[in-house]
């Protein structure tokens, strides 16, 4: 057990330490500090002949005493301490701890608003530059003169396409099945179960297949793009491109956006059919449809133009996911944590953007009288 004993004579204090002073044992020394403040003391020394093992516990204790001694104008006589403890304590400042003045965060609504507004404008501006750069890159791509590596496009395409089929298919199948279940339960009240194929078909082709696929891809691919670019930034890989004058928008972002724009409409169509298969499965099992009946109903209910509209929508979603994710990755701070934050931020922004864009499309569709 750590222990201390305080003796004083002729203005000199002597602190005798004994036992093991280890971090896991507790020492309370407020009384010692008070006694060290005795104004008649001029000198503080130590007797460590009984001291056992020690670690930071002892050093922290000695530092307290050193500061108390300095505050009281006493001589801190460390000659009685073990040499390594003396060495450590001599590294520590004797000045009492300065109360740190907290940084003043006064709320200035006007300047805050202005700063935020300026930041927003800068963000919009830099996004616009990026979009223009990417668009210019697309134009050059059409002319066959874009500056990126075909291998990168292929890798991105593989990742956004075939490797995403399983998750996109599973989710759309379940969405179709759920629609059929709910539809069957509700429509049964009006003896209108025959309209389940219409419900599943129209809902998935017009809305759900494209939105669900986009949200899956936002999480799966958008997050990955943002994290990848953020990591590249923290490793100076982006700077290395910039020095050479290789446009980042073209070299990194264009393959990402183009691969998504190519893959998404196909994933959307796949999603539509798998959602219908989900609805079909439920309808056959619980409503007594035949596959032929179900398909004929669906074909009657869903006009071909809805597929075209959905495919256009999913291309817009793809461009949004690619551009937003890359932009967020480029703006990330330079740390490992920032890469994770960029992925999270990209997914959140993408999902918000997808829903907002979808609402816009719904309004446009309504305005065009459909």
């Amino acid at each position: 057990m750590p222990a201390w004993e305080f003796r004083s004579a002729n203005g000199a204090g002597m602190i005798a330490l004994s036992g093991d002073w280890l971090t896991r044992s507790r020492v309370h020394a407020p009384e010692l500090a008070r006694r060290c403040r005795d104004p008649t003391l001029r000198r503080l020394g130590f007797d460590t002949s009984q001291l056992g093992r020690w670690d930071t516990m002892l050093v922290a204790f000695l530092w307290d005493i050193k500061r108390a001694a300095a505050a009281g104008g006493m001589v801190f006589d460390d000659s009685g301490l073990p040499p390594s403890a003396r060495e450590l304590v001599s590294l520590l400042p004797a000045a009492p701890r300065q109360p740190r003045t907290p940084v003043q965060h006064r709320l200035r609504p006007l300047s805050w608003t202005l700063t935020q507004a300026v930041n927003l404008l800068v963000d919009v501006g830099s996004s616009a530059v990026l979009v223009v750069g990417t668009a210019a890159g697309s134009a050059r791509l059409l002319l066959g003169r874009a500056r990126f590596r075909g291998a990168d496009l292929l890798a991105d395409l593989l990742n956004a396409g075939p490797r995403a089929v399983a998750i996109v298919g599973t989710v759309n199948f379940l969405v179709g099945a759920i629609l059929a279940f709910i539809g069957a339960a509700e429509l049964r009240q009006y003896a209108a179960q025959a309209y389940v194929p219409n419900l599943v078909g129209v809902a998935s082709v017009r809305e759900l297949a494209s939105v669900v696929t986009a949200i899956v891809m936002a999480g799966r691919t958008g997050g990955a793009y943002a994290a990848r670019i953020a990591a590249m930034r923290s490793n100076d890989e982006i700077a290395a491109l910039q020095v050479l004058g290789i446009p980042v928008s073209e070299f990194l972002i264009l393959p990402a956006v183009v691969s998504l724009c190519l893959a998404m409409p196909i994933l959307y169509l796949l999603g539509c059919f798998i959602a219908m298969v989900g609805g079909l499965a439920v309808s056959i099992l619980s409503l007594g449809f035949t596959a032929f009946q179900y398909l004929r109903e669906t074909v009657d209910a869903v006009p071909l133009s809805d597929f075209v509209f959905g495919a256009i929508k999913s291309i817009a979603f793809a461009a949004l996911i690619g551009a937003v994710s890359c932009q967020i990755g480029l703006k990330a701070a330079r740390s490992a944590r920032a890469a994770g934050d960029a992925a999270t931020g990209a997914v959140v922004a993408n999902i918000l953007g997808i829903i907002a864009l979808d609402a816009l499309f719904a309004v446009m569709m309504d305005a065009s009288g459909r």
Partner: protein
Amino acid sequence: MGANRLLEGAPILSLRDVRIGYGDTVVQQQLSFDVQRGSVFAIMGGSGAGKSTVLNTMIGLAPPQAGTVTFAGENYWALPVDERAHIGRRFGVLFQTGALWSSLTVGQNVALPMQMFTNLDRRTMRRFVELKLALVGLEDAADLLPAQLSGGMAKRAGLARALALDPEILFLDEPSAGLDPVAARRLDDLILDLRDALGATIVVVSHDLLSLFAIADDGVFLDAGTRSAIARGSAAQLRDQSEDPQVQAFMRRENPGSAGLHPSPYLEDKLWQASGSRR
């Protein structure tokens, strides 16, 4: 080297009254110096003195808040972006971590600048890539990914990529940071060999004294306290002639027995040759 002597009057890169900072924070101000062709110019200073930020301004990544940066007679930052990018291709930059593009192999890293900016055919390009990698002793690493390299190999691969477009000026950011002493000296030698072989100018940011004494023949000392350049000259000149206490503290500190330290690379070279085979 003969040609360089003739051009001695015209610095390849010069900074005049440059101020660098972020918003209201000044990193360096009143910065003026010239980098002569064919020289190894060191930007010295302790941690936090703004060495890398100054480098970023020279290589076109961070605009100065005031002042001019002139490269080969052109007021660099006044040029439109396109022309700046053209000048950037005359730079070779070795970033502190190597900054290899992590999705490409070492060979592809070296090849990319050539693919982007030259009309070389495939075979020639492959030969050039092989050559650049052999120059830095990495001819067997062409098919490795950056993640498979050690720190020293990544630096050397970064150097090979910096050499891809035969730069007129090489910028090296802390080339020896994170390397063991032998690997660091080896890199120093490589840098000097390359300068002699290619006739390139080298700007090196470093706080590694051994390296500074070994390679730099001119330089500037940046101080974090005054946020300005407080001394000019080679590392040895600063050590022997500067009276500034900051410079002296920096130059004398991690410098074991400065009297015995020969300010030339050849001592290190001999040590290295004695310690094993060259490259």
